[in-house]
């Protein structure tokens, strides 16, 4: 019962905030609404007994990525002639396609941990994740490759963004 209630609470939070993010007129407010979505998702991870993932979600997405999004928004000049209708259309299309693509999976999914016996055991997820990432026969190579790709992206972004401007002395 508790899990079910929590599930609906997080679902409402996630979807409500997602809609708010989509529909709000002010783009900064949309970004802030995303916080609710991200926290709701973190809640789902907790329900699925993936504590580490949930905390990572909060730390990286809410505390990091969202801050960067806001940073980016505030550095961008405001868009004056935006069309909300177009955004909604795109969103509906994406959600629809996703639903069609994952319909079979989604129908059979179990959304909270209590219903599944193997997840009900106390989880020490950090250790397993760490081992998985660092074992040679497991995910070590993709993990390291991803970090190299990210680093390359970072360097490229810095290179592209950095410019030298002549400025007049007032």
């Amino acid at each position, binding site marked *: 019962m508790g899990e079910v209630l929590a599930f609906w609470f997080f679902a409402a939070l996630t979807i409500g905030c997602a809609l708010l993010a989509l529909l709000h007129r002010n783009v900064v407010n949309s970004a802030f609404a995303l916080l609710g979505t991200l926290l709701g998702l973190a809640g789902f991870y907790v329900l699925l007994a993936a504590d580490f993932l949930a905390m990572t979600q909060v730390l990286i997405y809410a505390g990091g990525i969202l801050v960067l999004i806001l940073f980016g928004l505030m*550095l961008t*000049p405001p868009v004056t002639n935006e069309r909300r209708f177009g955004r909604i259309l795109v969103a509906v299309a994406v959600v629809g396609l996703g639903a069609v693509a994952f319909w079979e999976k989604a129908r059979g999914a179990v959304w909270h941990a209590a219903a599944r016996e193997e997840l009900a055991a106390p989880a020490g997820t950090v250790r397993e994740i760490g081992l998985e990432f660092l074992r040679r026969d497991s995910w070590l190579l993709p993990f390291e490759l991803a970090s190299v790709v990210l680093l390359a992206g970072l360097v490229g972004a810095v290179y592209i*963004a950095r410019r*030298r*401007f*002549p*400025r007049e*002395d*007032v």
Partner: protein
Amino acid sequence: MDDTTMERPLREGERLVELDVRTQDVEINMGPQHPATHGVLRVLLRADGEILTGAQSHLGYLHRCAEKIGESVDWLQYLPYTDRYDYLSAMNNNLAYSLAVEKLLGIEVPERAQYIRVILAELNRICSHLVAVGTYGLDIGAFTPFFYALRERELLLDIFEKICGARLTYAFIRPGGLMNDAPAGWTDQVRAFTDLFERKWREYWDLLVDNKIFVERTANVGVISEEQAIAWGCTGPMLRGSGVDWDLRRDQPYLVYDRLDFEVVVGQGYRGTVGDCFDRNYVRMYEMLESNRIVRQCLEQMPEGEIQHPEVGLVLRPAPGEAYVGIENPRGELGHYLVSDGNKIARRLRVRGPSFSNLALAEHLLPGCMLADAAAIIGSVDIVVGETDR
């Protein structure tokens, strides 16, 4: 954005500013009510993120018509008004005005009065620099040195209170001499202070000036070149901080300064470039020590005798003529230009205030700096708005 690509040759008056990302400029009002503007100064800043792209200072919020008042009150009655343009160094203001009036009158005050004047002027310089260094710490974000500086200033104010009865606006050094002679025990109090001060000075140095963060915040920030400083008419620590060896006390000696042994402190880029904010503060720091030395010498050399010129009374009628006397105020050259038509009221009175000229350059240092540097640069100029606006 094509206008701002890298390959175009720089136009005159432009310089290359390196920015990570260029965004819309923000116009932001610093002041007239802002903690870092030392009074009711308003600086209109244009900023691209944290980096300033333009600055314009707006003066006049504290304009009190000092010069015009000077043309409508007696020569002596104007004296209390001089206290009020740079209220942190009122003794020096009194002295500047008195010397100018004495030049008009063509008199020289008795020797004892001259020595007491030097002592008071130098103590007042310490007083003023203590506030300058302390509030500079506040601008940079260090609170405590300010209180330590005010603690020693309090001792100085006690000394002033003992001799003249006032703690901030003295009206004590007046044309013809002094209001009063030093009371008994006063010289001992001054001597005790000079001994104490050297010990306390180390504390300011260790706590504030030598602090790594302070050095990082001030070194290489707001650099004024030698030529720039001269061209903009900077005086005082602002000029000497840029490496120009010029001090009116030595180069155009007045009172008994030519009999005293002291060094003129000049910025030398101790932690960065010559002429940066650190150097201006450095000059103030060491000037306090030099003033301390001067006070000691004066105490030793001071003769007994009169403190007031016998022919100068309460109502003055200088012969028609004009006079300009500039003295080395804590903030630079404070000059009075006086014109007399033989009346007991000045025909024309004009004040050349150091903060006003120094501030003019400050706003040209701001573009290209960061927002936090604005506080550091304006603080390093050490303006007193009462004087810029008069």
